[in-house]
């Protein structure tokens, strides 16, 4: 099977699932309509009819981690091709990647020391 056919298969899988779910939705709709009643569509908050909109500026307290993650995450873009040829190249590869990871780890240590790795 050619590589493009495989992608086609995956695409077909995606579309197939979407179609299946749509069919399920269709069957569910055929059961009957959802009655509109007061209070039913207010987001459930344990017995209180809380009508306040909640879409406000949300304080994500892990932004210190998030900043480090954004940069650190890039490391794997380089690591996967490296891992594939690692055995072939041998110790040099370990050394190269060792330097790279050490550089990244330094950044992590800096962030850690400055208090980025905590709930802000």
């Amino acid at each position: 099977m050619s590589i493009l056919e495989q992608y086609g298969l995956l695409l077909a899988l995606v579309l197939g699932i979407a179609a299946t779910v749509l069919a399920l939705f269709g069957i569910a709709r055929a059961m009957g309509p959802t009655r509109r009643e007061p209070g039913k569509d207010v987001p459930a908050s344990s017995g209180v009819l809380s009508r306040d909109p909640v879409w406000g500026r949300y304080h994500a307290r892990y932004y210190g981690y998030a900043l480090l993650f954004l940069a650190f995450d890039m490391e794997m873009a380089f690591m996967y091709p490296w891992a594939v040829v690692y055995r072939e190249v041998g110790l040099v590869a370990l050394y190269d990647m060792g330097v790279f990871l050490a550089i990244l780890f330094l950044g992590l240590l800096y962030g850690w020391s400055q208090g980025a790795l905590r709930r802000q």
Partner: protein
Amino acid sequence: MNFVIVLVALLGSVWLLAVVEGWTTTGRLRPAAPLLSGLAHLGRESIVPRTPDRVFFETAPVLLLIVAVLGAAVLPLAPTLVIADLATGALFINAALAYVLVALIMAGWGPNGAYAMIGGWRFLGQLIAYAMLIVMPITAVAMRAESLVTTVIVGSQGGLWNIVYQPLGFVLFFIAAMALAFRAPFDLPTAPGELGGGVDAEYTGVRLGVLRLARLTLVITLASATTVFYLGGWHGPLLPPWAWSLIKTLAVAVSMLLAGRYLPRIREADLMRWCWTLGIPLALLNIIVVGLLVLVVP
């Protein structure tokens, strides 16, 4: 043909997992319960919250199901029994499962409800914690197999399973996989006791059914990934290869399910701190150890 067999195997595993889940929660073994429960979901009303982001609200469960199945599509049951044997299979499964986060953010933001929104953003924090622990152990697996192709990775474990070869990587991957599947004790985005259902809270009827199906599929996909990367995939005596794959997958999935029963939910701050200050250094150590092993042991 493969296409159908793999999907049927996936559905069958999900069904078995649902039966086991019902067994642990109600104490009764009822094989028909998952089907009945699915039918019951069809029969309940599907409520859309007021002033929602309708697109997000509708897409989230479908997206979750799609990515869970896509992840399973590159995992082999037997040497040729795989939907798409991609050249970058090990990376592809990461890519597919990264969209679990997207689905949960959508499910959290969509309904415009406080519990759901907190749940969605919590999962982003959870991803920041576990993501590196999924990616880095897989790197070590690829180092040994010299390939990202999942069938080759399983093939490389013919002599010795990776769980023995790199136990540290297995432990990290298993924990991270549980966090990715957001099952207890990592169910921070859906925590009933803390968020009253969180991202699940506003889903009813058929949408809730799809969401639950997707979550179980996700567990199976991750269990299957654990099997492929660490438990030697289809390798095993006597039984046919596909049977071994299924048995191992189900065993891992059930153990993921049971682990949550016997543990309290982790604190989010602890999860993030442990993953970054302990997990990532250990994952790096794992890579170095495996790197040396690969060079020393032919």
